[in-house]
């Protein structure tokens, strides 16, 4: 590591970054940047950073909005419902099918996830209000898509500003038709990021799925002692499926997935589950807490990234059940261990000691650290787009070494940190991908798994390992330097 310690380098990098800002912005950003130490008990949050605050204007933040949190994350993947992007055409178009929420169904007939339904507001709707238009949208959807099991109305920015009453319109229509209509006031200007959208969406699940009276096709399922629900897994690239298989193998029954590949029926029957398994704490802790309070269903957080965390999580889940489950859990662990060993034997030597900097949404910045470390890779920086204090507290337990922590990092800062700390891999979103690739740095998208995945569970770990190897050891990075370039030049 040379004479300068990693921690000193990280601290210096933060100091340098802050110098570029005008005073007011520097003061603000200083509170969101820090260096976290794994043993540092004095820190309240990892790196003592502050979070879930307004973004500094003008800085190229990576954050999205409440609409993205509700339509894009929580509601959008519910496959047998139609989700209207309510307002002008843009938001729905940009977010169409971008998240890779895998599902099985006949799209446009009984499932609708990758489609874009929008009320496409025009000037007259803004001026005179669009409640009538919304009512008509609902009618038309029911006529053309008779197999939809409900419709959600996802408000875009203008809706709340022009005084439209989507709640009244939805209620009236629902009453007339008996349909499940869920209005969500997730206008993009509410809150500071996607996060409030998660919360608002969770609340509407409570109000319209649990406390409402949704029509449910088919027979209700019979309850068993081993019913669990997967909460906060959006089935990106099939993540929930490669998680589900492990739970089933250990004798549990997964009665619902929230909300990747979900149907509204699964959500309804979750209220009878024995245990809720929460993967993305940030986006679905609200509904988990509600089910605990209202239906007495306990919830536990788990982490299916990388074998170390997967094993820990499997045991933690099994401990909640009887010995037969615990025994099967050990069998599952034993069954996959040779594969994990083989994956590590193959890839660890190729990845050992490679340093990584992460920046993702609300969960993965801490959850995937273990998976990298399982491959011998070292995470030296991480941060969240839209986490809260409780996430940064949890992060303290996941880091292995001095780690620079950046909340709501912007393009300028991330670039500066990378230049200063020189990681071997940057893992973040699409917007930053080509910035770092142009610098010749291997990069993986960690929202979409870069069109690969799944990464959850044992099978997912093998893919994760192969993908990281592909990124770091590809011959393409060696081509940036031309034969006529002199030493020391790019």
């Amino acid at each position: 590591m040379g004479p300068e310690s990693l921690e000193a380098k990280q601290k210096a990098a933060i100091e340098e970054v802050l110098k570029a800002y005008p005073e007011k912005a520097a003061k603000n950003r200083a509170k969101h940047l820090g260096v976290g130490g794994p043993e540092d008990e004095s820190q309240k949050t990892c790196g003592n950073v502050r979070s879930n605050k307004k973004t500094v204007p003008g800085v190229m933040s990576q954050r999205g909005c409440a609409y993205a949190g509700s339509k894009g994350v929580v509601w959008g993947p519910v496959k047998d419902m139609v989700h209207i992007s309510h307002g002008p055409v843009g938001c729905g178009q940009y977010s169409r099918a971008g998240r890779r929420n895998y599902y099985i169904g006949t799209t446009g007939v009984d499932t609708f996830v990758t489609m874009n339904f929008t009320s496409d507001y025009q000037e007259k709707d803004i001026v005179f209000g669009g409640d009538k238009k919304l009512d008509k949208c609902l009618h038309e959807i029911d006529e053309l898509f008779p197999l939809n099991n409900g419709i959600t109305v996802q408000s875009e920015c203008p809706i709340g500003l022009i005084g439209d009453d989507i709640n009244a319109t939805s209620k009236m229509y629902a009453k007339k038709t008996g349909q499940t209509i869920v209005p969500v006031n997730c206008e993009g200007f509410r809150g500071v990021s996607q996060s409030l959208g998660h919360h608002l969406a969770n609340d509407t699940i409570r109000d319209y799925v649990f406390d409402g009276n949704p029509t449910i096709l088919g027979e209700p399922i019979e309850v068993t002692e081993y019913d669990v629900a997967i909460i906060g897994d959006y089935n990106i690239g099939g993540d929930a499926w490669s998680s589900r298989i492990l739970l089933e193998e250990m004798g549990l029954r997964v009665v619902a997935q929230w909300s990747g590949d979900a149907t509204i029926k699964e959500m309804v029957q979750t209220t009878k589950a024995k245990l809720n398994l929460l993967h993305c704490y940030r986006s679905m802790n609200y509904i988990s807490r509600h089910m605990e309070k209202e239906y007495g269903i306990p919830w536990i957080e788990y982490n299916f990234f990388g074998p170390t965390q997967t094993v820990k999580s499997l045991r933690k889940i099994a401990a909640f059940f009887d010995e037969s489950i615990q025994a099967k859990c050990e069998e599952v662990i034993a069954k996959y261990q040779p594969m994990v060993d083989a994956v590590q034997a193959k890839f660890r030597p190729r990845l050992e000691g490679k340093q990584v900097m992460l920046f993702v949404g609300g969960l993965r910045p801490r959850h995937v650290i273990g998976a990298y470390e399982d491959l011998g890779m070292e995470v030296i920086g991480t941060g969240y787009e839209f986490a809260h204090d409780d996430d940064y507290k949890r992060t303290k337990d996941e880091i292995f070494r001095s780690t620079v922590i950046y909340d709501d990092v912007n393009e300028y800062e991330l670039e500066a940190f990378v230049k200063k700390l020189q990681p071997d891999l940057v893992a973040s979103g699409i917007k930053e991908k080509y910035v770092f690739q142009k610098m010749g740095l291997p990069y993986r998208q960690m929202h979409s798994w870069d069109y690969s995945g799944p990464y959850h569970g044992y099978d997912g770990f093998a893919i994760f390992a192969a993908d990281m190897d592909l990124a770091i050891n590809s011959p393409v990075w060696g081509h940036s330097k031309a034969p006529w370039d002199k030493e020391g030049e790019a």
Partner: protein
Amino acid sequence: MQDVNNIVNGKDLFRKPEYKAVLENKKQFEGGMGAINPAKTEEIAEWTKGWDYREKNLAREAITINPAKACQPLGAVMVALGFENTMPYVHGSHGCVAYFRSYFTRHFKEPTPCVSDSMTEDAAVFGGLTNMKDGLKNCAALYKPEMIAVSTTCMAEVIGDDLYAFAIAAKEEDAGEFLAADFPITYAHTPSFTGSHITGYDNMMHGIMSQLTEGNKKEEKNGKINIIPGFETYIGSMRSVKAIVESFGAEYTMLGDHSDQWDMPAGDYSMFAGGTPIADAKDCINADATITLQKYSTVKTMKMVNKKWKHAGGFSNPIGLKGTDEFVMKLAELTGKDVPQKLKTERGRLVDAMQDSYPYMHGKKFAIWGDPDFLIGMVSFLLEMGAEPTHVLCNNPARGWEDEMRALLDTSPAAAAADCHVWAGKDLWHMRSLLFTEPVDFMIGNSYGKELMRDTDVPLIYIGFPIFDRHHLHRYSISGYDGALNLLTWITNKVLDQLDEDTKGIASTDYFFDLIR
């Protein structure tokens, strides 16, 4: 379980027997019709393919399904990135900006810088002045642009923020620390509830051209030709156009030239690359002529140029043979020079190629969608090849487009013309019904055609914007003679691929699986 010697991702993983069982087993918990009663799903799926459904579908008045258009600020961001060291700045909520950036980045596979001033609930109540003051200052301090081009999201438009006044107030407060008095802050209001991304393009281009030229009009013309590319997503097209203009030896300014910004070489990263120099943009009012390559994307801009600036030039759409001919003739007229030999040869080669390949495109039926000017150019090329553009769909038609397209289609041989339909203001769920009820041989469009391809089995030729799932097409040209040759190559070879697909049946149809075509 994964085999370490053959690790597979989701494509093959979920086809393994253990996962097939998982997915099958999940159905018992599901409430979708596919799990409850697959026959019913089948029945409805069939119904969606018929005329009854089509009529109901076409009668829609309120809901748009699978649109083929985007919103205004997207176009404004494109314009800004076409000027040297210019930061696109969107006044409003940052969620939109995250979307604009990912949308362009997914298409170009290039970074797309753009900032927002992150307005939130309090700004909705009190207005976004504070956000703008801080935002402009921070943006200038961090990224050191030469110009900031401000557009707006819906939110700022609904609350009615005044950009002009805000920009002045921001400079006053900053008192020259980061924003010098003469620092150009150009702006345009881009409300997303009117028009589409091309309207936003027009508004921002108009804003930049009118604001930068203020007080710069001189007695003398500068002898240059301005070229406005429009919402151009083919980097190669911009280069083709420039090459044509250069071959006349003409002095020109391409206004809004983002060809280097979205095509940066590897090896180093700088936030901005290329673009129209600000000094040239300031002088564009003194040009002899202005040519726009996309009439419908520059309505307001060209009104200013024609009526106020009284520039010669006007409109020319260099897609296809005839379109390129017209562009070349226009340049010959404006420069007073003969058409250079280089172009004559290029044209000859294109025509030669068209005459080589015509049997495969002749009489083939096409469905196509996209922006208005793109469609005019593409349809005229299809007609030049003897193809039949059966369904021409434009979700964001500007005034006059429908009539122009109709007239263009009517120039095709009489029998075919009646079977060619113009669908103005329709979306891609309409297109689905059209494809089922009046089928075509091929579709031409963007990545949103992928689901249509899956549902209807009509092969998709990827030409348009956005294209997320095919690589590097945007690097090529679809304009000029060389661009037309690319179009010809892509379309002909897709026809040939399909011919092979259709005839490869062993011992049944492969007599027609010819080696030579």
